[in-house]
């Protein structure tokens, strides 16, 4: 055979063999995340909901966890590392019974003393194990916690500053790292980051910062139903949407988070599966309630809500949205039965605006803060332009103030009264609304007015404040649900936000991915997944 022909055959063989490596070994799931880096691995994760999803509830556990087994109903809290909990008669002291025989990946046992050590890691800046990075992520999640104590190996008490029945939801954020592993790593969190140890169903086997993390099953996991079926799960940061789509379409990953709507037809056309479900996410305009804000008029707020044809917005997002009927998704257990329906009704909206003194010759001009992109913001520019056009139909002219996402977060923290907001009367901010605090309380609590908290619009209403107090002092779960429903009903009936849409957490999966159940939650269970041959 001539030499050049031999060379050509060799190259062709190499290409063929290399292409064969695209066909992945069974049992390995490769995930393209939207994050630009591997989330913090030491316990309390960064990178928002995605961090908790892939590096939090995989490698670690919390005392109380979210039930991620069902796609059909909203997630509820379930026992995690604590099997039961109760509050004392003082309504301040909570007692937790820890699960027996739970061990960390390094083999050390979980005890109440280790839980105390973990809380000190976040809350006690004098503690040897205090980690500013984890504290920055965890401390603000447990504002109710005043003190804590290990009663015995498997009993823990936590005392709150004031009666707060939402403590179990707060504790669902807090993940338990291994004290023994931290000691073995010379008490150095940087070393722990490379070889962390939790009690979760997955162990971190390999980690290349910014490039990949490899998780393998924890065969000794305390919940046998959640021992992973896969041989391995590989996490790859792929922040650029086109790179994510190309990686999936070319077979380099089996799963991508948040496919861009315009790439979905190509994916479904090639046999990929789009998985989505309602979950506690909200795309809204948070309205300023400062003196002089036009949004102080309930007729204007209701008219604006009724001016948006949400169904017609769906094609813009490839159908991947749930039209808002309130602040919480309609499927939420706390949705209640509000009397105001913000559905599209242009005539009714115009009537309300006329009643408020506006019309074609007396238009209302508002200023709105928006960002061109951002975590959870979906497609903010076209969506906001759609809202702008809709509001123009009811004589509301919107001037946009466009700022980059990082700056948007600062302006959100600063609040509507801050000079930097430059008089904007609303901010388009997406919300994680999974628990009573993040879902309802934090946005409108008069004790959390920005910049001391996240009540961006400076809203104050004694009736709402009383409802928030009632949520915190209602310890019976069913009764608490009723109060939460009443709170949400007030949110909707008073049209306190511009309710636009809810995201559905789309992810594109290879047809080989089997057994995934997309829970109505920001976090997911990966243990049930397997890869078909």
């Amino acid at each position, binding site marked *: 055979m001539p030499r050049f022909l031999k060379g050509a055959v060799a190259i062709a063989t*190499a*290409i063929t063999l*290399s*292409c064969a*490596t*695209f066909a992945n070994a069974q049992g390995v799931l490769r995930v393209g995340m939207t994050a*630009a*880096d591997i989330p*913090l691995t030491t316990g309390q994760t*960064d990178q*928002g909901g995605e961090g908790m999803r892939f590096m939090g509830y995989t490698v670690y556990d919390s005392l109380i966890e979210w039930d991620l087994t069902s796609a059909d109903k909203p997630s509820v809290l379930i026992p995690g590392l604590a099997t039961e909990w109760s509050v004392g008669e003082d309504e301040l002291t909570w007692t937790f019974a820890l699960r027996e025989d739970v061990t960390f990946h390094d083999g050390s046992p979980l005890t109440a003393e280790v839980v105390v050590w973990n809380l000190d890691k976040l809350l006690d800046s004098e503690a040897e194990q205090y980690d*500013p*990075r984890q504290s*920055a*992520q*965890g*401390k*603000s*999640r447990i504002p109710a916690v005043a003190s804590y104590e290990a009663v015995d190996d498997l009993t823990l008490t936590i005392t709150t500053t004031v009666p707060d029945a939402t403590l179990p939801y707060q504790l669902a954020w807090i993940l338990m790292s291994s004290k023994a592993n931290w000691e073995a790593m010379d008490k150095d*969190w*940087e070393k722990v*980051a490379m070889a962390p140890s939790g009690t979760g169903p997955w162990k971190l086997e*390999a980690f*290349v*910062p*910014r*490039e*990949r993390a490899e998780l393998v099953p924890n065969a000794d996991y305390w919940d046998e139903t959640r021992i992973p079926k896969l041989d391995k799960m590989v996490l*790859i*940061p*792929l*922040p*650029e949407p*086109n*790179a994510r789509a*190309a*990686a999936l*379409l*070319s*077979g*380099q990953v089996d799963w991508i988070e948040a496919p861009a709507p315009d790439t979905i037809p190509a994916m479904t056309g090639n046999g990929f599966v789009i998985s989505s479900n309602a979950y506690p996410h909200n795309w809204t305009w948070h309205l300023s309630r400062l003196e002089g804000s036009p949004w102080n008029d309930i007729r204007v707020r209701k008219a604006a809500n009724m001016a948006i044809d949400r169904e017609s917005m769906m094609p813009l997002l490839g159908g991947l949205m749930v039209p808002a009927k309130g602040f919480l998704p309609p499927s939420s257990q706390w949705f209640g039965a509000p009397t105001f329906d913000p559905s599209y009704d242009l005539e009714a909206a115009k009537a309300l605006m006329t009643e408020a003194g506006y019309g074609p010759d007396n238009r209302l001009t508002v200023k709105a803060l928006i960002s061109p992109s951002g975590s959870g913001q979906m497609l903010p520019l076209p969506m906001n332009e759609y809202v702008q056009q809709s509001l123009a139909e009811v004589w509301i002219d919107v001037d946009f103030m466009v*700022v*980059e*996402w*990082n*700056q948007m*977060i*600062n302006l959100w*923290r600063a609040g509507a009264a801050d000079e930097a907001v430059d008089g904007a009367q609303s901010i388009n901010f997406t919300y*994680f609304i999974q628990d009573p605090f*993040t879902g309802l309380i*934090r946005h409108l609590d008069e004790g959390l007015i920005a*910049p*001391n*908290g*996240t009540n961006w619009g400076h809203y104050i209403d004694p009736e709402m404040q009383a409802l928030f107090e009632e949520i915190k002092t209602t310890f019976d779960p069913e009764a608490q649900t009723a109060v939460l429903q009443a709170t949400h009903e007030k949110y909707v009936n008073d049209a306190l936000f511009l309710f636009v849409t809810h995201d559905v957490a789309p992810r594109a999966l290879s047809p080989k991915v089997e057994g995934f159940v997309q829970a109505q939650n920001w976090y997911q269970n990966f243990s049930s997944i397997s890869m078909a041959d």
Partner: protein
Amino acid sequence: MLSYLIRRILLVLPVAFGVSVICFLLVQIAPGDPLTAIMAIDATAEEQAAMRAAYGLDKPLPIQYAIWIGNLVQGDMGKSIATGRPVAAEVFGAVKNSLLLAVSAAVIAFPIGIFLGFLAGYFRDTWIDRAVTALSITGVSVPNYWLGIVLVIIFSVNLSWLPSMGAGPGGSQSWAWDWAHIRHLVLPAVTLAVVPIGIVSRTVRALAGDILSQDFVDALYAKGMSRADVLRHVARNAAATALSVMGLQLGYLLGGSILIETVFNWPGSGFLLSNAIFQRDLPLLQGTILILALFFVAMNLIVDVVQAAIDPRIQRT
């Protein structure tokens, strides 16, 4: 030659100082908060203030600069705010990957650019010249991130010949010169090479055409020198300027690959820089820009020295 070299190296020092000041100030101008990446989104104002103090961001800018430059001269570039990892390790790891990509692109681009440039210069005003000119203008004009996406669609998605992202099995830390890894380099390197092919070929064409029209070339032919020998003289005369352009191009390839590295998820300095910008990770941003700028300065120095070695006339100017 030695005094020239010393003079050029001494000139680098004020340039490096200026670069460090500009790097520091540029990243401070951008709106946004470096602590956003590491704080829970609804952290209280008190928690934000405590964190700002912990990272020294509450100090006046001149003091922040003095601390940064003081640590820098001791070899400490600080820690990334977003990841907590040492900036030096982050930057040098990424620069190593970018160098791999840049040198690969240069290996593709420079010989092709030189060959096409000579071809066009030698056959000036013929159809070959026009074809090469069209090709090089296209190369310079096509947005390389767009070209990258097109190549991915063709060679990764449709043909499944080459991977679309990453640095190969195990990531860049496991890089090896085997096909499993090299195949990850092919598409980004080819994409990155397109612009320098255009620039180098245009430069060499102009140089070759200009030199070929000079009297000494006619004299060489008149003396009976062969065409190959004459071209060798032309190449020698063109080398100094061409080298200068190629040196600068290598600097651009290293620092200007931000879009390519994003499209191909290549873990280089451009990718690092892009993430650092979005996260307002000031220490990482300052460190990356500084190293890239210093690399550019070093490339200029090397080019100057090599030029002087090739063309003794340069030392006298």
